[in-house]
């Protein structure tokens, strides 16, 4: 039985070429970028090469990119940095109800510290309420943080419009976006979105775990979260993750966004058309629309426990997720699914299928077949009640 991996929004396999490069950097080119000798210089060059590549992809300056240990650190350092810097000039921070925990928990922390925190509602498609956003931005607002692509449903926020609203209403409000799901998969236009900061991660697009980064608009001068040897222009101390960074350069060079998008579009289209005929009482939470990512499909099945279905599929070497990896460990219904108002008897039966460039239509056939078979098995017991 060959493995079918449909959990690519949790993490992805690392590109072979990147692994080779990482091995080389671990075995031979293991210098510390801070060292004065040649090995150090070579390591530094590898780090700068990756920084340049990322800057090029985002059409920003290299010195506006900083490496981190991943998306969670990035979100923490930016939100905390922005609040610490500007809390003297304002007290209000705004986010949405469907953010990743690494954003939401930081906002909750500041709420407990007495800041005026607004959590924007979303509609049934997971879109934030622009009117409410506009009303919420006042002279006291120092930060708006809204994710680009939601990790559970794939809903894409209109960052351009949000950016316009933010900047129109307040010059001093910083605009941040968690772009962990979208970086490398969708075009992110920092300028027209008026973004001051964004977060990305390497392991969601075939890079290694333990590496991510942030963009910070030049001149913002946020206070750092981690102090020490002064790496990353003093903003993020700690020896650079050179091998991972060097491998990530290769990953980014290999990205063919056009061909990936075409693949995702056809996979999603096929999946949605198939699942609707194979299973009854199913809700598609990620419709095929321009404002939804093509690589994430969330479905909710009536009278099914998502976790059981997940394990039944796993038995057949098919790997999917219930909600997101982060909320599925806690055994409670997801805050995102609750925010988009999925009916009670469907919400527990939510599965997320997320694609990578390696997935095929044939894998979808096998997945749907197994899904239909296992769903009817489980419903045999749950329907009687």
């Amino acid at each position, binding site marked *: 039985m060959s493995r079918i991996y449909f959990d690519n929004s949790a993490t992805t396999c690392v590109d072979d070429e990147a692994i080779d490069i990482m091995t080389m950097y671990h075995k031979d080119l293991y210098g510390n970028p801070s060292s004065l000798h040649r090995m150090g210089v070579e390591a530094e060059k590898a780090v700068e090469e990756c920084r340049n590549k990322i800057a090029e992809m985002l059409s920003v300056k290299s010195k506006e990119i900083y490496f981190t240990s991943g998306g969670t650190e990035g979100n923490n350092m930016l939100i905390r940095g922005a609040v610490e810097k500007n809390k003297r000039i304002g007290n209000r921070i705004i986010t949405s109800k469907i953010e990743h925990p690494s954003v939401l928990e930081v906002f909750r922390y500041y709420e407990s510290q007495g800041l005026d925190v607004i959590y924007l509602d979303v509609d049934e498609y997971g879109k934030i309420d622009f009117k409410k956003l506009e009303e919420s931005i006042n002279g006291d607002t120092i930060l708006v943080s809204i994710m680009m692509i939601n990790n559970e449903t794939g809903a894409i926020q209109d960052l351009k419009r949000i950016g316009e609203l933010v900047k129109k209403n307040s010059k001093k409000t910083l605009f941040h976006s968690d772009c962990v799901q979208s970086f490398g998969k969708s075009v992110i236009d920092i300028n027209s979105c008026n973004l001051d900061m964004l977060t990305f991660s390497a392991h969601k697009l075939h890079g290694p775990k333990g590496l991510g980064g942030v963009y910070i608009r030049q001149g913002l001068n946020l206070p750092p979260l981690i102090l020490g040897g002064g790496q990353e222009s003093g903003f993020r101390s700690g020896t650079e993750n050179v091998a991972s960074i060097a491998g990530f350069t290769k990953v980014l060079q290999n990205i063919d966004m056009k061909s990936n998008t075409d693949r995702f579009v056809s996979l999603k289209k096929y999946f949605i058309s198939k699942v609707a005929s194979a299973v009854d009482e199913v809700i598609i939470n990620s419709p095929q629309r321009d404002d939804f990512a093509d690589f994430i499909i969330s479905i909710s099945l009536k009278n099914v426990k998502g976790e*059981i279905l997940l394990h039944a599929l796993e038995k057949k070497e098919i790997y999917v997720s219930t909600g997101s990896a982060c909320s599925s*460990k*806690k055994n409670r219904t997801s805050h995102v699914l609750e925010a988009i108002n999925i009916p009670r008897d469907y919400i527990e039966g939510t599965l997320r299928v997320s694609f990578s460039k390696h997935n095929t239509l044939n894998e979808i056939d096998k997945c749907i077949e197994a899904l239909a078979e296992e769903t009817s098995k489980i419903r*045999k017991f749950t329907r*009687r009640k």
Partner: protein
Amino acid sequence: MEKIILIRYGEIGLKGLNKHYFIDVLIRNIKDSLKSLKNKKIEKIQGRFIIRLAEEDIHRACEALKKVFGIASISVASVVEKDLENIKEVAEILTEKECRGDETTFKVNARRGDKNFPMTSPELNGYLGGHLLKTFPNLKVDVHEPQFTLFVEIREKAYLYTEIIPGKNGLPVGTGGKAALLISGGIDSPVAGYMIAQRGVELMGVHFHSYPYTSERAKDKVVKLMEKVAAYSGRIKLFVVPFTDIQLAIGEFCEEKYSTLIMRRYMMKIASELAVKNGALALITGESIGQVASQTLESLAVTNAATDLPVFRPVIGMDKHAIIDIANEIDTFETSILPYEDCCTIFVPKHPQTKPKLEYVLKEESKLKDIDEMISEAIDNTEIITIYPK
């Protein structure tokens, strides 16, 4: 000066002619618990054991010994030749460690086992106490509630120590036969296993795994729980029984309100069979009266009728919080409350029968035509995992 661990055993010291058997088993268990430590020597002396090992391992050894049933108490003692100069010197070192703040109260508790030693116990108390008072000006004697006691035992050598660490007592595991613990992953069953092991009973574990209705993580959780119990009971063989087919059949053919009860009866049957095959003489469960529908007296009676073996339920009369206290003590609580589905939660009936009658249950069970084959298949496909203390 050498540091050793002094071990006192409790109840087994009172045994009669088979005392040596209990002592040998206890020594074996002590050796097992110290398996990961190098170069240790264990020696039997009158009413005690002495363990010699590298000084840096002493703390770890004590932590392990605190969990060995049959040990009454432990002390880390300094050993010297039994002449007064040596004894005084060690007494000073130990006392210095105990002195804190402006005033520290103490007493000396000397016991002369070797009657050739020139001073009697009270004489030695007076002599050492006086010497220490002179040496440490902040010291004061309090014979009723001293902040520390300096114990001095004069035997073939002199042993000095200031702390008596209580052991778990009970009987050495293996002296009381073997029993099979039904373990679900909840709070109660590890506690039940621990309590029975305390009476010297060796454990084997039986866990019912309903994959894919329960996950790999649910099984890992049971393994982790058994590792914690094994720190007390010693090595455990865990039998993981594939239970999905039986559970599905019950769900399909039997009346819903009896499903949990019937499931539990088959668990008892399979556990009994595994127990008998592996030399266990009884079953252990974590049942507690009235905790859930399957633990009413009526339900317990129906479940009990599924086996001929004695069923031990050590937490039967305990409140939940008392069970949780023990779970915390043996460090299983945090693991028990991890939220993975266990086999009992999936097919829970909406309205379970709380006052079942055996005849109705048997009638429902008779609807399962292939159950005997399913049971032997489950037993044949049982996975055996050997669990070592952690």
